[in-house]
């Protein structure tokens, strides 16, 4: 956490978000609201451009009724919670064995050079960011990445090109909605 330079984040706890939080709290005994912390953090982060400022974490602590430190220590432990603004379309490539043996390193190099960035630096327009992460559980469909709620699998350079175009054109939905069709 950068303590000298804090980036401002607009906090917007909408009625929809509060309803979801209350629904999640109801999944645990009344005297164990802290148990809902991880699911709640995911929802709050999703509703706030995919990152959590100190002020937002404090807000979560207040809603659940726990101390702020209890939120900070969780956010800093789990890799999916971001403590700084990140690219809107975060390409998280799996780098572990099966993906590595099927060429993910070449694909990451390709993607970075195409976007003109290094690993972990968002593009100037804030649209894209490339990261290497550890095993995502898609070893049979390597190489692959996580993008939002879902996985993009059996990746090739052509598929990356297409994906970048689709993201720019607003055709990529980051949040998954259950559809039985």
């Amino acid at each position, binding site marked *: 956490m950068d303590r000298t330079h804090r980036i401002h984040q607009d906090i917007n706890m909408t009625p929809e978000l509060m309803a979801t939080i209350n629904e999640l709290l109801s*999944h*645990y*005994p009344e005297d*164990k609201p*802290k*148990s*809902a*912390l*991880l*699911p709640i*953090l*995911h929802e709050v982060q999703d509703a706030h451009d995919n990152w959590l400022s100190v002020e937002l974490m404090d807000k979560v602590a207040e809603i659940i009724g*726990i101390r702020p430190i*209890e939120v900070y*220590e*969780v956010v800093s*432990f*789990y*890799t*999916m*919670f971001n403590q700084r603004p990140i690219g809107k379309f975060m390409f998280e490539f799996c*780098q*572990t*064995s*099966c993906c*590595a*043996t*099927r060429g993910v*390193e070449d694909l990451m190099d390709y993607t970075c050079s195409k976007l003109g960035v290094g690993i972990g630096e968002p593009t100037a327009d804030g649209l894209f960011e490339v990261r290497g*992460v*550890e*095993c*995502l*559980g*898609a*070893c*049979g*469909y*390597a190489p692959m990445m*996580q993008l*939002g*709620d*879902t996985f993009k699998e059996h990746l090739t350079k052509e598929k990356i090109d297409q994906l970048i175009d689709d993201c720019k054109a607003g055709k990529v939905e980051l949040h*998954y*909605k*259950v559809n*039985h069709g």
Partner: protein
Amino acid sequence: MGKQLLLDKINVPGIRTYEVYRKEGGYASVEKALKTMTPDDIVNEVKTSGLKGRGGAGFPMGMKWSFIDKKSGKPRHLVCNADESEPGTFKDRFLMEYIPHLLIEGMIVSSFALEAHRSYIYIRGEYMWVYKILQNAIKEAYAAGWLGKNILGTGYDLELNVHVGGGAYICGEETALIESLEGKRGNPRIKPPFPAISGLWQNPTVVNNVESISAVPWMILNGGAEYAKIGTEKSTGTKLISASGHIKKPGVYEIELGISVDEFINSDEYCGGMLNERPLKALVPGGSSVPILPAHLIYKTANGEDRMMSYESMSDGGFASGSMIGSGGFIVYNDTTCVVRNTWNFSRFYHHESCGQCSPCREGTGWLEKVLHRIETGHGREEDIDLLWSIQARIEGNTICPLGDAAAWPVAAAIRHFRDEFEYHVRFPEKIKNRDHFVEEPFEKVKHLLAKATV
């Protein structure tokens, strides 16, 4: 075609939905269990089945259930471990994504057997879309009366919810998972007390893998004795194998335990043989933490017997010449693979995933990663191989949870079986500058250099 108990209906169109699942006979085991069986009857069927926990450790499920404390009168919990994070493993995701109601059905029957009234499925955060599929399926099950108060008018109540993690391999360890479910960092607890006595919120808790729980409905409908007839005497039932790496058909396969490794890798029913017909070099049969096997110990054991896909055959020879079936994360490597690079890759994983509680693991995994990285990038020293051996030996057995062992074993096995490849890296740094060094020139073609240089 082997017998399928878990995936037999996976190709039925719409099986993800409640309507189709129910039409195909789904939830029949809940009716049978709640209306005609006692909790102890169910525990006995599971014991008789001989099913070994499918998460990786292979502990008998029925025995685990029998340890749960029923005397204290505290509320009991069943928690399903859907944190699936062991590199090479993606089977639970497949079950939950395509046939989520099977797990929910298993959770209801298993919770009833444990007399638990509040149960959870803990799923890893990266499976966010599967989390949403499960949430939806649970809603459907509530609406149809399979969850909630007074299920089927039997007086049995069950609240089932799915809980999502935040990206941490360590939460697959059952006490770390419980900590995470309590809204904390995933730091494993010191045992005893075991979760069966003091688990979630200090209540008696059983933690079981997705695949284990999903096998329970079949056992209830057909009997534990019937289940035990499938597979081998010591490895009963079917097992999901996540096959990946250099094979023609990666994917999730349900096998009857006891088929040969040769059949699994080479038959068209399963992996379909080696990708591009390149030679087999190594196999990690049960997820990244189990020992890697060199080519000559894959199809045959050290005794020259056929190696089988079973708990006993896969571990035949101990760590000297065997491995483990573990989680069923079956990673096949051909001759273009660099074992040093792959071992460094695994060590980076464990270093990243160490929770940091125990110094041997927190520091040791970092040292392993660093030393392996310098060998792989051409900066290795002669003494580094012995140094690696000594570091891994000092991690193993010296930590609260098995992550330390899991980090140590792959390094030990790689040195045990592929020491010459490490020596090659140390002695010929100019030959390994490119990360694809063995793609261009497989080790088999260059290993003669080692002999020459020693003359």
